[in-house]
């Protein structure tokens, strides 16, 4: 009886602790990595490898929460002027810059963003992310190009110690999302001057205001991040230490290290996934890895510069025939292609639009479900009947004008075994469906080094698998590869699409969408219309989104910030390391709950 009473008491005590909102407990996090940091100078580097550390050591004005809603970070609140040009931020008081030993250096103030901008827009520093900021901040581009030399004319001002104001060239509806990117992070001007060109070269030459401090950093050995005790939001940082060990063969050794309990999470390479899935013990600790906002598509090239042996003149004729493009568009079995990298769950990565789902929404409605785009987002482009119908039409229209079979030069990166296999699959699949009397797909291998320079960028392809990642949280970012001046597939050179103003129909639709800066729902609908048009005219074949695959991990999923763009998604803040890795079933249950909660959160969101 006594035991029963004691057990009940303990249970009640435990429940009361839980209900009182005790902070989740977490183990330390261990990992291996194969790509060493090239710099910690967050004002110059565009590399996600570096951002994965920077996101955890320096905070910006705003950040995303776990549902993808923008929330205050070092700005406690903000205000946008009625004309949409001036953004005024109130900076959080009492936030400290600390050194790598956690010692106070200075307070974070509004001037830190001005000093960062001054460094960023100074051409001498050759920042590779400056363009993201100077594309919107007033006079920043002119300052960068040396057309003006007085920095006070640039649209970044510290109104007082804790009030910061950005003035933009034009209203930018997605400006808040841009603030989660590295080029809008603050820097302490005095420290920057003290360190000079050594700023960001190691863990002692940066200051920290984020959730973690890079306590040790030894290139090609490892790094340790420890929780920043002076962090303004430290009650939401649960993992005390993040310990990373360098190993160039991390991709090969990672699974073994995870099985030996030496690391906390690992991506399972596609070459191993089969053996893991067949082993019940291993299968129980495997779960799907998150997909990313990278988009993959097969592009038709309207500006072929490839070698005469692949008959570029003939390609120019056929690629300008919509029925020919549609025949390929509907003939490509994307699932078969995806099996080369995702043998267990190809559907998770297959995608029917250029812009990924969950990228942006208006009033809770996902962008890919807007306007005409909804038709494509819900339909698999692979359709044998349609493919053969379009083939018949194309052959009839091109008879006497083009030579069959059409030689289709399709480069692939020989450094990627998945891509190499996929090139063979696509060749066999398309030729088998459409007939080798119609097309002759010619996969051509190129080395990994300088791959894009040798292929896509100079138009050295007929059809090529391409990708693109977003620069800000707005569908405009996914139009960048296809507007005039880009070097993807030159749709502006397609015949039959030029309108009265001398520009292509797609470009005009995009311009119309860009001009809508007040009504976000309308803006998204216009972009959705343009994207639907672009897909409908078969300028590209949407293929997939990035990431995916499988992982074994003790990190609790959906506890970290979710973001379509920027660095928030790279933060360990809010995460916990569980005692055991989660199974796929466990993951799916958490995901379903998270999706429901997210839908509600997005409906309530102001931004």
């Amino acid at each position, binding site marked *: 009886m006594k035991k029963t009473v004691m057990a009940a008491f303990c249970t009640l005590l435990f429940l009361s602790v839980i209900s009182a909102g005790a902070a989740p407990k977490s183990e330390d996090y261990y990992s291996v990595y194969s790509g060493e940091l090239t*710099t910690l100078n967050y004002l110059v580097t565009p590399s996600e490898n570096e951002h994965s550390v920077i996101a955890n050591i320096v905070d910006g004005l705003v950040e995303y929460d776990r549902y993808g809603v923008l929330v205050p970070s070092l700005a406690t609140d903000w205000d946008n002027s009625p004309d949409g040009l001036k953004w005024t931020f109130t900076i959080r008081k009492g936030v400290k810059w600390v050194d790598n030993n956690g010692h106070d250096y200075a307070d974070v103030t509004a001037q830190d963003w001005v000093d960062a901008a001054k460094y960023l827009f100074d051409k001498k520093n*050759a920042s590779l992310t400056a*363009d993201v900021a100077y594309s919107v901040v007033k006079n920043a581009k002119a300052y960068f190009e040396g057309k003006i030399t007085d920095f006070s004319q640039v649209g970044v001002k510290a109104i007082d110690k804790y009030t910061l104001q950005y003035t933009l060239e034009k209203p930018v509806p997605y400006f808040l999302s841009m603030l989660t990117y590295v080029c809008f992070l603050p820097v302490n001007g005095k420290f920057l001057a003290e360190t000079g060109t*050594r700023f960001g070269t190691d863990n002692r030459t940066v200051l920290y205001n984020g959730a973690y401090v890079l306590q040790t950093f030894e*290139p090609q050995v490892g790094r340790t991040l420890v929780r920043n005790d002076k962090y303004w939001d430290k009650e939401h940082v649960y993992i005390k230490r993040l310990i990373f060990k360098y190993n160039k063969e991390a991709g090969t050794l990672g699974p073994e290290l995870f099985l030996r309990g030496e690391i906390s999470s690992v991506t399972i390479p596609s070459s191993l996934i089969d053996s893991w899935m067949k082993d019940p013990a291993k299968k129980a600790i495997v779960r799907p890895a998150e997909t990313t906002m990278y988009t993959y598509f097969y592009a038709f090239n309207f500006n072929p510069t490839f070698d005469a042996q692949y008959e570029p003149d003939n390609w120019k004729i056929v690629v300008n025939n919509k029925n020919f493009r549609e025949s390929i568009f509907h003939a490509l079995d994307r699932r078969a292609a995806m099996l080369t990298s995702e043998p267990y769950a190809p559907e998770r990565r297959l995608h029917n639009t250029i812009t990924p789902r969950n990228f942006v929404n208006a009033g809770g409605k996902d962008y890919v479900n807007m306007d005409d785009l909804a038709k494509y987002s819900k339909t698999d482009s692979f359709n044998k009947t349609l493919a053969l119908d379009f083939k018949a039409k194309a052959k009839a229209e091109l008879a006497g004008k083009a030579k069959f079979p059409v030689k289709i030069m399709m480069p692939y990166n020989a450094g990627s075994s998945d891509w190499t296999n996929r090139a063979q699959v696509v060749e066999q699949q398309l030729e088998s469906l459409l007939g080798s009397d119609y097309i002759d797909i010619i996969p051509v291998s190129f080395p990994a080094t300088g791959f894009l320079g040798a292929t896509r960028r100079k138009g050295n392809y007929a059809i090529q698998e391409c990708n693109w990642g977003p620069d800000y949280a707005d569908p405009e970012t996914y139009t960048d590869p296809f507007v005039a001046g880009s070097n993807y597939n030159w749709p502006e050179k397609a015949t039959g699409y030029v309108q009265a103003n001398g520009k292509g129909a797609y470009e005009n639709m995009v311009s119309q969408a860009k001009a809508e800066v007040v009504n976000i729902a309308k803006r998204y609908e216009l972009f959705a219309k343009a994207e639907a048009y672009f897909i409908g005219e078969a300028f590209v074949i949407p293929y997939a989104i990035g990431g995916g695959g499988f992982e074994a991990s003790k990190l609790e999923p959906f506890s970290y910030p979710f973001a379509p763009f920027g660095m928030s998604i790279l933060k360990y803040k809010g995460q916990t390391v569980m005692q055991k890795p989660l199974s796929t079933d466990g993951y799916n249950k958490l995901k379903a709950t998270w999706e429901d909660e997210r839908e509600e959160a997005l409906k309530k969101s102001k931004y």
Partner: protein
Amino acid sequence: MTKYILKRLGQSLVTLFIVVSVVFLLMRLLPVEGYFGDGYDKLTPEQRTAALQRMGLLDPWYVQLGRFYFNMLKGDLGTSIIYRRDVPVVEIIAPRIPYSFYFGVAATVLALIVGLSLGIAMARKKGRAADKVGTGYIVLINAVPSAVYLLFIQLYLTSLFSLPLLFDRYQFRSWILPTISLSLGGTAGYAMWIRRYMVDELNKDYIKLAMSKGLSEKKIMVRHVMRNAFVPMAQYLPAAILSTISGSIYIESLYSIPGMGGLLVDVIQRQDNPMVQALVLIFSSVGIIGLFLGDILMAIFDPRIKLVKGEGAR
């Protein structure tokens, strides 16, 4: 000898100048976009120009080359432009050399001891079990891709002997497998080499004469066969030891050893010119010094060899 050393020194400096200058110019022929990696597409033309200006790549090639040699004479090899932006190349390279050198020397010594012993045993027991086992080992090491057996050794031997999977400089046990792995190729090479020369020597007339004169087998082996067989090896030994500072690409990668292995390949791929130039300078110097020392060592081992003209020079 002094004349010889001065002459070789002069030749070495000319060789070094040619090698470094050619590599310097070749690096300038690489595509500009290589300096920007995957981010190239997202940069504006102004940003690309600013970045190239900062890297000093917009000046004419002869200005760049002159600047490199001028700074080099002042002891300044420049700063990394990509691999670790703004960090002096000396600071990047210097801490890595000792790791590769320690492992390299330890593995070379181990390979010499085991390889020479094995080769001598094989030569002495030609056609018998020891010879066959040794031949099997040599064939295995040379025929099977090293990536396969090195990974096998790492995954299974660490489990079997409870050794760490990754290198930790503070843990002596983590030094064992990389050293053994690194010595395997050298062991096979030295064994094959010494066996071949000893078998050749054993078939020569002077050995038959010595045998017929009743000299003991031990004396014949040590004083004649091994000494003569070792002479051709002696030439390459200094270069082999010195070149260990270039590290082992795969073994250092597998065990997370922060050495020089693969560094040159990495920086060439990333087009980090100052790093490439510094490494080429170091590796070329080491190669030249190694060959030079090899010549001297050979002259010491074999009195018949003279290094100066008119004295029966080679």
